[in-house]
């Protein structure tokens, strides 16, 4: 498909490549916000949104979006105006740009770069910057605290994330996410299990656990949602934002959640590979399996969100620096040994 488009005009190709992930993110965000409210509702013996749009309030997110567009855009008097306005867009741009290297299906990846993993991790680091920007520019002490917490948290948790991703890279021997996915095709393990990395090597299960805990922290989900912990910091770095700017934060956050879940699906669960070998395989089925795997991880994140209390900021750091990081490096070495031996 990509070759076909670039035949017509290079600019058209760029636009198409930009539009596909954007559509996916926007549709996903609308569904995920509604879905999270529904999941929260059912977990708490409630129903969640029920009124807008008929069946189980499916149009709730659309109605919310329309409301947010109409809202007055309030900027605090003493805020640093440019940074304040810029931060939400930068945050969204960061998580959006990272989608370029995600192989959505065997036939589509935005950019077939051979350092995909590296690019993705580098671009998502911009999130930290934008959160600090928002927290600082609001000229609100709660926002500042939220921004600072977030900076500390994300910088720390990037280390175990990278270490656990490296474990996979070590096994795969490639930084290109498409290649990594292709390596997981087939159903050879024990004769029926798919060739996914999570089944290939016991150390990769540990790597996945570390990775999952880290992405919970990276995307600010409970029990690590300290930057915006609503009962302590009111709303953290989002406190002063309203209307569309706040919606951008929300969108970026959900996009980030999807991005990291999809990364997890690519690295550990075979990406767009069908769990049944050649059955139900193909570009479109690939997209389906890929999104299913990613969304399952998102749903587990939501499930955790509505079960657990949150950690304190120093405990969060403790978990990262004294448990996850040593563990992930030990795991990396052990994986390397495993690879040498077998």
């Amino acid at each position, binding site marked *: 498909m990509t070759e076909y488009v670039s035949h017509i005009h290079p600019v058209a190709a760029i636009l198409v490549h930009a539009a596909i992930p954007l559509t996916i993110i926007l549709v996903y965000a609308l569904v995920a916000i509604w879905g999270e409210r529904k999941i*929260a509702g059912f*977990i*708490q*013996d*409630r129903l969640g949104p029920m009124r807008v749009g008929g069946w189980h309030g499916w149009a709730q997110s659309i109605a919310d979006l329309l409301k947010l567009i109409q809202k007055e855009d309030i900027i605090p008097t003493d805020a640093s105006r440019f940074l304040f306005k810029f931060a939400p867009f930068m945050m969204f741009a960061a998580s959006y740009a990272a989608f370029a290297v995600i192989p959505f299906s065997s036939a589509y990846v935005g950019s077939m770069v051979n350092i995909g993993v590296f690019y993705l991790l580098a671009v998502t680091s911009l999130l930290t910057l934008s959160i600090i920007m928002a927290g*600082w520019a609001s*000229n609100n*002490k*709660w926002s*500042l*605290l939220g921004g600072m917490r977030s900076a500390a948290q994300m910088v720390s948790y990037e280390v175990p994330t990278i270490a656990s991703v490296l474990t996979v890279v070590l096994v795969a021997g490639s930084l290109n996410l498409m290649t990594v996915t292709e390596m997981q095709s087939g159903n050879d393990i024990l004769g029926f299990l798919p060739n996914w990395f999570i089944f290939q090597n016991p150390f990769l299960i540990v790597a996945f656990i570390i990775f999952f805990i880290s992405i919970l922290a990276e995307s600010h989900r*409970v*029990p690590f*949602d300290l930057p915006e*912990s*609503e*009962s*302590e*910091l*009111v709303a953290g770095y989002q406190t002063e934002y309203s209307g569309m700017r706040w919606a951008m934060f929300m969108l970026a956050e959900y996009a980030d959640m999807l991005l990291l879940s999809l990364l997890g699906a690519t690295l550990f669960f075979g990406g767009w590979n069908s769990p049944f070998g050649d059955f139900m395989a193909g570009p479109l089925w690939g997209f389906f399996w890929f999104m299913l795997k990613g969304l399952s991880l998102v749903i587990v994140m939501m499930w955790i969100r*509505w*079960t*657990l*209390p*949150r*950690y*304190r*900021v*120093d*405990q969060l750091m403790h978990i990262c620096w004294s448990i996850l990081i040593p563990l992930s490096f030990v795991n990396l070495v052990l994986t390397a040994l495993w690879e040498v031996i077998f």
Partner: protein
Amino acid sequence: MLEVISKETGNKEMVINMGPQHPSTHGVLRLELVLDGEIITKVRPNIGYLHRCFEKYAEQMDDYAKVIPYTDRMDYVSAINQEHGYVIALERMLELEVPERVEYIRVIMAEMQRIASHLLGIGAFGLDLGAFSPFLYLFTEREKILDIFERVTGARLLYNYFAVAGLMRDVHPEFKTDTAEFVKTFRPKIKELNDLLSYNKIFIKRTANIGVLPEKVALNYAASGPVLRGSGVEWDLRKNDPYSIYDKFDFEIPVGTGEVGTLGDCWDRYMVRVKEMEQSLRIIEQALDGMPDEGDVMEAIPKRIRPKEGEIYVRTETPRGELGYYIISDKSASPFRVKARAPSFVHLSMLPAISKGSLIADMVAIVGSIDIVLGEVDR
């Protein structure tokens, strides 16, 4: 922003206002926190945002009975217990005999209210620490209690149900079966709560060793109720200074054990409340067994209340601790002075003593664990 910070304190400390509008101050409380990073070096609680002149109103009413609906509004989470203390004070002043049936109904209602109040306190505590679902599960149970209350009193929150030496209306015929049914369905929910929240490791990490209140400090600050018991003092007015007919019942006083941390920390205070709910269930069961079926609950209510000259200090055990009414009468039909000694007021005053050196997140846990109701603090 740095200029702002240094202007306020002259050095690198930051003063931050937690409240009056803040999600975890449980109402309109303002805490002035002096921060060094996220570490609190000083706390100054500022109260009075919900001051509704209860004491002045009480003096200006032309009837002692008209004060009862106002007592409801002090601690709006446990209105029945507030009324209970006030009517007991008046009964002692007038030297009235209360019919047995009335006493039994009062005890059942008061213990149900204690459970309802603890449910809210525990739920809100969990909410402060980020656990959303337990709050709603507990609220479901609280609703069941309120349903029973609504059938009995006609109201869900502010009941005005107790009258001097009587009740405003009799209970309905199914009251006993309704309550027994609730007791039966509620027991398993406590276990569920323990699974979901009490013994959750993250929850324990957030509450153990936090906000430790040693026994000596607790007594010097006149702490009472679950806060005092959390520090390991076996002190419950229902046992130690029995009022109403509490001496007839067999129940235990749960105290803090320091099971997961230090004695007197947030977790102990929380756990005392959980265990207290079980004890309340026991009292309710015994009271349901002993409650007489016949008897007029309105018979003994005096037509006019005019105590002789004198003063009295009556204290009762509310879910939050010792509620004292200091009433002076001057032979007229309205009280000369009513002072309500509210447990939350006292507990809030010791906040600076127990929260120094903790983090903002701990502050939230501490405020949640002492379970204040601002309506009672400000009156």
